[in-house]
């Protein structure tokens, strides 16, 4: 294991961790306001497809990116409709969203299989990309990776230092108290679903516009679920999400490289790695958080019932 192997691997880890990071932060944003959305996998798929087709039609990956975010947010709003308006069970609604979103993307995407769309290219940062190791790992990436660097800090500021962020947290911790304080927890939850969904969609868009530039059905292959697990692993803190996302990015990149190198290990067993790691990561956080998952928003997954 030398630098010639390690540096490209780390760069690939950051790249393949980025879509997971977007999705994890998006889900975290929604969960902080008390809404458990298990539709991340479906929303990523829909976001990936919308971004791909829009970029193909307009020739602009940035337009595609926004379209991907909006499409995932729109799908997320179905979750809002089912749970916030119609008081449905959040677990079941999220599962429905995943089934529906995956189906939609694979159905509408079938004609596009194998096509390529204009996507995001590597954009080395002048100066910073010359730093010996970090330059190649962190600063020779595409624009979306740089965008993702800024997000965790912004999220931290949002939740800790702004009125809106605290209102969102209140809606997730104790909606009744939030309402008594003059806030509208249902409206806050709607906003959190839409905004979180938009971010999840950016993660999907990253898959089809930056990670690859072509469409394949089922391209998110469980990344949405990994993101749901990472929110728990991160104890609902944005900084730890970065670590988790790059860890998974690293494992995925490592497994791809191992396969490409013509190893004797069967590919089915290699493909298990990220999923096994997800279980491992949850185990780890469960052992760390023994004595109750007090880090989770208190009212996570519990609907706000309409008042008489």
């Amino acid at each position, binding site marked *: 294991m030398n630098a010639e192997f390690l540096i490209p691997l780390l760069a690939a880890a950051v790249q393949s961790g980025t879509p997971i990071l977007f999705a994890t932060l998006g889900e975290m944003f929604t969960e902080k306001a008390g809404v458990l959305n298990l539709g991340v996998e479906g929303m990523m798929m829909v976001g990936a497809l919308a971004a791909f087709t829009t970029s193909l039609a307009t020739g602009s990956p940035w337009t595609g990116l926004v379209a991907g975010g909006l499409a995932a947010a729109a799908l997320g709003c179905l979750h809002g409709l089912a749970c916030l308006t119609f008081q449905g069970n959040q677990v079941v609604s999220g599962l429905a969203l995943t089934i529906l979103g995956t*189906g939609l993307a*694979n159905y509408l995407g079938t004609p596009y299989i194998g096509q390529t769309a204009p996507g995001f290219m590597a954009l080395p940062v002048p100066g910073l990309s010359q730093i010996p190791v970090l330059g190649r790992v962190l600063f020779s990436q595409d624009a979306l990776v740089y965008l993702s660097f800024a997000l965790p800090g912004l999220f931290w500021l949002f939740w800790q230092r702004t009125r809106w962020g605290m209102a969102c947290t209140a809606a997730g911790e104790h909606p009744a108290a939030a309402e008594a304080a003059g806030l509208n927890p249902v409206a806050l939850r709607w906003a959190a679903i839409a905004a979180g969904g938009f971010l999840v969609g950016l993660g999907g868009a990253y898959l089809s516009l930056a990670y690859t530039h072509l469409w394949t059905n089922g391209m998110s292959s469980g990344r949405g679920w990994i993101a749901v697990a990472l929110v728990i692993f991160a104890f609902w803190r944005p900084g730890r999400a970065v670590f988790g996302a790059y860890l998974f990015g690293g494992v995925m990149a490592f497994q791809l490289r191992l396969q490409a190198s013509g190893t004797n290990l069967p590919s089915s067993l290699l493909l298990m790695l990220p999923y096994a790691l997800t279980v491992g990561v949850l*185990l780890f956080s469960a052992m760390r958080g023994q004595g109750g998952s007090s880090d989770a928003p208190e009212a996570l997954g519990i609907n706000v019932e309409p008042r008489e």
Partner: protein
Amino acid sequence: MPFWKAVKREEPLRWGSFFIFLAAMGLSLAISCALLAVQGRPPLAALSILWNGAFGQWYAVEDTLLKAVPIFLCSLGVAVAFRMQVWNIGAEGQFALGAVGATWAVLAMPGLPAWLMLPLMGLCAAAAGGLWAVIPAWLRTRLKVNEIITTLMLNYIGILFLDWLVYGPWKDPSSFGFPMTREFPPAAVVGAIPGSRLHWGLAVCLAAAVAMHLFLNRTRMGYEIKACGQGRNPARYARMPYNFLVLFVMGLCGALAGLAGFLETSAVTGRLQPSIMVGYGYTAIVVAWLARLKPGAIAWASVLLAALRVGVENLQLDLQVPAAFGGIMEGLILLTVLAGQFFRNYRFKTRRTDAAPAKEAES
């Protein structure tokens, strides 16, 4: 401010829930048809293909019932787990492990007579599926690890494990490179019911349904399982062994899904191959919720969803509709039925009728 608000019903809607179900199904079908129209396919013709494909002739009905068998078995377990608020999303992986377990019995002891072979296969399948489900249950009860994600991850792992077996150690040397095991000996094949293409797995379903009904309604443990749906603390106060019940229900769930995997490999494909994994375990979740977690209703709900699958296969052949269309319909049905259940307990009241009497009182 919206002009309406939700008000809780004095008593739950009784017969209306059937109409809610019809409305939800109608809405899902309408949206699906609109999606077909988007891709330039005739929606009405598609509906008739869907119907005829699933129920049009006896042949089609047989297809539907064949697919209903694994969906029913998986769903029966899932519904009991969901009743306890144990979110087992892992029927798909437990189904895979069941198929693997049954195949192991055949490959390890190929010479057994049918009367010994078939029960042994069933036992191995139930044990493998059950153990696969007990892992996340144990993690949940011991370490409070979220079972939704672990069961789902074990789906991916279980399916990849099956893949590894049929691509590697269990591959039939004379299969021309196709990933499949050797064909099972006749003694390891669940036979057809004479005069039809249906197999005796249908009888297994019937037995499982009766057993489940008796278990839930006639035994102490069945009662406790239903009571535990209220959550961990009420169960504790009533001195019920909550953790044990979670393990037991998950094991039961996995065993039933494992049996479904056994029937599918033995009766339908006659060998282990990756094509048996078509998402019955996920369909089972839709079915369980559609049946409002009532074992009695699961039978017809699984026939309905099986019919949908057969119908979509026909759409694929006749109109080249992508297979993913089935997923869209299942997702829509689950979502609309879930939202529709709101009306069982609530109704909407317009604010105007609320405000009018108040104004009169003022003047």
